[in-house]
C-alpha cells in the first residue's frame, strides 16, 4: 500500500520485525542510539508523528512469542511484556491473581488504545502519570530484563529512577513482569481523579494490603501523577502498618503525604492542590479498603 502523503509526517525510518529476543537485541546493538523497540506504538507513534523522536530504525517486538502469555510460576504470575491493556480486563488469571491490575485497566486510556498498548511498553516508558507502572510498585513486582549480558530481574522499587528514566540500559528489553499472587488475606483498592474518563489523572493511587482480621500487617501504596516517577508513600504506609483502619489512622496517613510527596509546579494544578487531592483520594481509598474486609 502506498501511504497517503499527507498523513505520514514522521521522519523516514527503517523497520525490522524481530522473531526472537536475540534478534531484537542484536538489531538494537547494531543500530545503537538510533533504534527504538516498538510494541503497541501507542506512545511511540505519536512521538514519531510529532517528531519528538526520530530514530532511524524501529524494531518491532510484537512477533516475539517469548514476550507473550500470562502464566503462574511458583508464587508469582508471569505477565509477558506484550500483554495488552485490554487483556488485563479480559484474562481470568489477571482477575484472580492480580486484581489490582484488573481494577486499574479500565482507567488506562480508551478501548482503541487498550487494544494495542502493552504492559511492557507502559512500564518501559515509565510515564509518571501512567497507572500500570505505579501499580508494579504497589504489587512489589519484579521486572524481567533481557540484555546483551543475559537476563536479570529488577524490583519495581529499584526500577523507576527519574522522569522517563528507568533501570533499563539502552538496547535492553523488558520480557515479563512478575507479580506475587494475590492472597486471601489481602485487600486492594484503586482509583484516580481524572477530568474525563480515560484521561491521565490529576492524581491516582493504588494499594495492596495484607490483613490479620482488621489489622494491617503490611501495605504498599503507590501514587501516580504526583511527581517525576510513580511514587510509593512510605510515610503513609508506616502510619498504617500494625493498626486497624480507623479515622485517626487514616488522618495520620493523609498527614504523612506532606513529606511523602513533592508535586511539581504546574500552571493548571498547583502543588498544594495536588497534595490536597492526594489526601482526599488516599482517605477515600483507605475507607474502601476498610469496608472491603
Amino acid at each position, binding site marked *: 500500500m502506498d501511504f497517503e*502523503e*499527507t498523513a505520514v509526517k514522521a521522519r523516514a525510518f527503517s523497520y525490522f520485525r524481530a522473531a526472537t529476543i536475540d534478534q531484537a537485541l542484536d538489531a538494537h546493538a547494531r543500530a545503537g542510539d538510533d533504534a527504538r523497540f516498538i510494541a503497541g506504538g501507542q506512545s511511540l507513534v505519536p512521538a514519531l508523528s*510529532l517528531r519528538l523522536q526520530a530514530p532511524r530504525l524501529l524494531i518491532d517486538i510484537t512477533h516475539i512469542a517469548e514476550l507473550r502469555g500470562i502464566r503462574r510460576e511458583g508464587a508469582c504470575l508471569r505477565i509477558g511484556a506484550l500483554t495488552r491493556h485490554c487483556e488485563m480486563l479480559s484474562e481470568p488469571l489477571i482477575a484472580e491473581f492480580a486484581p489490582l491490575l484488573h481494577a486499574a485497566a479500565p482507567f488506562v486510556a480508551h478501548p482503541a488504545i487498550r487494544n494495542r498498548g502493552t504492559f511492557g511498553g507502559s512500564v518501559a516508558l515509565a510515564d509518571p502519570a501512567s497507572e500500570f507502572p505505579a501499580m508494579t510498585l504497589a504489587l512489589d513486582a519484579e521486572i524481567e530484563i533481557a540484555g546483551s549480558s543475559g537476563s536479570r530481574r529488577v524490583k519495581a522499587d529499584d526500577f523507576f529512577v527519574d522522569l522517563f528514566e528507568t533501570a533499563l540500559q539502552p538496547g535492553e528489553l523488558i520480557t515479563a513482569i512478575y507479580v506475587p499472587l494475590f492472597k486471601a488475606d489481602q485487600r486492594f483498592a484503586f482509583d484516580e481523579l481524572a*477530568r474525563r474518563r*480515560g*484521561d*491521565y489523572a490529576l492524581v491516582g493511587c493504588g494499594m495492596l494490603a495484607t490483613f490479620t482480621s482488621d489489622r494491617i500487617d503490611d501495605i504498599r501504596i503507590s501514587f501516580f501523577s504526583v511527581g517525576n516517577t510513580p511514587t510509593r508513600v512510605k510515610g503513609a504506609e508506616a502510619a498504617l502498618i500494625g493498626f486497624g483502619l480507623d479515622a485517626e489512622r487514616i488522618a495520620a496517613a493523609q498527614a504523612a503525604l506532606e513529606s511523602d510527596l513533592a508535586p511539581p509546579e504546574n500552571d493548571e494544578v498547583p502543588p498544594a*492542590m495536588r497534595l*490536597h487531592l492526594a489526601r*482526599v483520594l488516599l482517605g477515600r481509598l483507605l475507607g474502601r479498603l476498610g469496608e472491603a474486609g
Partner: protein
Amino acid sequence: MTAPLTSLDRPNSYIGRSLPRPNAKRLLAGRGRYVSDLRLPRMLYAAFLRSPRAHATIVSINADEARVLEGVHLVATGADLAKICTAWTGTLDHFKGMTSAPQLPLPLDRVVWAGQAVVAVVAESRAIAEDALELIEVDYEDLPAVVDIDVAREAGGPQVNPGSASNICFRSQLDSGTVDDAFAHAAHVVEEEFFFGRHTAVTLEPRAIVADYDPAAGMLTVHHGTQTPYQFQDLYSRHYGIPEARVRVIATDIGGSFGMKLHVYHEDMAVVGLSILLGRPVKYVADRIESFVSDIHAREHRVRARMALDTKGEILAMDVLDLTAIGAFSTYPRTSVVEGNQVIRLIGAPYRFRNYRATLEVIFQNKVQTSQYRAVGHPIACAVTERMVDMAAAKLGLDPFAIRAQNVIADDAYPQTSPTGYRFEALSHQACLKRLHEMMGYDDLRAEQAELRKRGVYRGIGIATFVEITNPSPAFYGVGGARISSQDGAIVSLTPSGEVRCLISVTEQGQGTEAIISQIVADQLGLAQEHVKVITGDTEVTPHGGATWACRGAGIGGETALQATRALKRNILEIAALILQEQPSALDIVDGEVVDAGTRNQRMPIAEIARIAYFRSDTLPPGTQAQLTVSHHFAPQGYPFAFTNGIQGCSLEVDVDTGFIRLLKHFIVEDCGRVINPMLVDEQLRGGIVQGLGAALFEECRYSDTGQLVNGSLADYLVPMPMEMPDILITHVETPTADTELGAKGVGEAGTAAASACVLNAVNDALAPFAATINAIPITPTKVLKALKRF
C-alpha cells in the same frame, strides 16, 4: 375513533417530520468526500514553518538547504507571496473607528503570535516538506509580547503594532434610558466581574484545502473545507486578480465547521498563491497542533457588570464593561469585533428593563486571532445576564424561576425593541419558563437537593434564559461593506424522468441542510422525498448565496427553496393544464401525480409532463415554452434578524473535596419557530449544548506569560466526551416568524448560547452553603477548590 388528521397526514407532508438525513448513510459507510482525502494528479503538499515567538522581528531567513532537498519544489516567504497577493484588512465600515493592520499570507518582517506561519515549503509529500522545514533557519529578534489584557491596556506599554497609539482595535458604547439615575435610586444592586477563557472549535476534520491553478485556462479551482464557498470565490478572485468567473470553490463534505471555517486563514491564502506560482495542485491539511495555534479562537472576555433592582425584584438597569482581547489582527472579512458587539447587545435581552449602558473595548494582543465561533457572543451575554439575575434573586430571597417570570418580556407584549436596538417580532419567554419548570420537575429537584445537602452531597440547579440572533439580513455584514451575501439562491428543475433536482447556495456541514431542503422541496411540490436530489457547495454549479453562517440555513435557505419550488410547481401545472385542457388552478400535484385540486383524482404523472416537455414539445400548443427549471433568490426582509428564544436548565453535583463537577441532567425548552425536522433540530440542540458544556467545564486555550499556547493538543485541551455528558431533554414552543411563508428561524446556536450560563448558575447554587462563588468559565476543579479555600 380515529385521531384527527393533522397537516402531517396529507401525502408528501415533510415539513415537521423527523426523517433521517439522506447523506448520513453515505458518510457512515465511509463514502464521504472530504478535502483531506482528496488527491489530484500532480498534486504537491505544503507545510509551514511557524514562529516560536509571540512577537519578534524576522532578521533573516536562510532556506538554502531546504530548497535543494530532493522532492522540494518551492520554498516561499512573505515577500514571494506579496508579489501576487494583495493585502487584506479585517475592518467593517459600520464599526466606526475600528482599526486593524493589513495582512498578507506570510509576514514580511515581523511575527505577531507564536504559531504564525512564516515560511511555506511545497514538496512531493508532506513528510518531505516537513523534513525541509527542519533545514530552514530563521533569526528572530524578540519584541515585547502583549499577552495579558491589563498589559495591553497600559498607557505607554508594549504595542502589538509598534508606532500605533494604543492596542485598541475598537471601542463602542451604548447608553439608553437613565442608567445613573436608576442605580442611584435602586433598592438593590448586584455586581460581579466575569472571566471567560479562550476556546476553539476543534472540528473533527481540521482545516483542509487543495488549490489547483491551471495557467493554461487562467482558472483557479479550490477544494476547500469551508462553509462559505462564495465568499472565498470572491476573495480569491479579488486578492489574486483572477476574474470571479474563473475562480471555482468546491466545498464537498466537511468534517465540522462551527463558524471556524468561514474566516480567511493565512495558510489557505498562501496555498492558493503557491499553486499559482507552481501551476500545480497544492494541498494543505492542518494537523491538530497547527489547528490549535492557527484556527480562530473565541471568547476571551472580561466583563464587569452591575444590575439595579427595586424592592420587589424588578430589574431597573444594567451597566456593563466588556473587555475582549482578539489577537494581533482583526479577522477578515468578518472582523473580530462582532463577538463583543453581540455581547453588549444581547446582555439583558430577555428582560423588560429600559436603562442600559455598555462599553465594549476590543484589544489587540500577541495571540492567534479570535472571531466568530458557534453562538458568537451569546454564551458571554447569557452567562453575565443570568448570573446577575441569580445573584439578585439570592439577595432578594426570590426563586430563580420567580425572578425571571417577573422580569421577562411578556409573550403578549410583542413587537418589542430592546434597549440595545434589537427588534423582537415575537418571543415566548413566559411559555418556555413554564414548560421548563414542569419538565425539570423543579420542585422535586429542590426537595431532593435539600435532603442530600443534609448528607453532605452538594447538588446545584441552574437555569438560563436566552435570546438567539438568527436569519440575519444585510444589516449584519452587507452594510459594513463586506461582500457577504444575506440572500440565497436556488435552481430547481424537473428532470426528464419526473424527479426534482435542487441546486442551492446553503451548504452542508453535517447538520442536515440537504435533508431539510429536500423535505421542503418534496413537501411544496408534492413528491416523495427520495425523488428530490439536493446539490450544494460548488460555486460553478450552485447559485450565489450566503451559504452557512450565523443561523440561516433553514430560515433563509429553506424559504428560498420553498419559493423556488412553488414557482416550479406553477410552471408544471401550467403545462399540465395545457395538456389536460384545464385551468392550472383546478390542478394540484400529489405524490408525483397531477390531480384534480378538488377531488384529488389522478390525472397524469409529472414524469409524463416532463417527457412531453423535453422530448415531444411538438405535441404542445404552438408558442408553448415549458419552463421546467426555475431559478429563484430570496433575501430576508422585514425584521433585520429573526430572534429566537428559549431556556435551559441543569442539575449537577459538586464534589466539594475534589472540586469535580458531575453533570446529572440538562434540559432545554426552545422556540425556533417552525420546526422542519424535529430530529435534526433536537440534534442541533444537543450538539450545541455539548459544546456549551465543554466551554463551561473543560475547554480553554491556556497561554504562558510569554504568549505560548501551553495546551495545544487533544491530550491537554479537553473537549467534552460522552462519559461526562448528561442526558439532554428537549421540548419546543413554536412561534413561527411571519416574515416568511415557511416561518422557520435558526436553531444551530441555541444550545451553545445558554449551556455554560446554566452550569455557572448551578455550580454557584451548589456552593451556596459555603459562601463560595465562581465567576469564571471554564469552571475547573482548581477554581472550585480555590473558591472553597481547600488549598
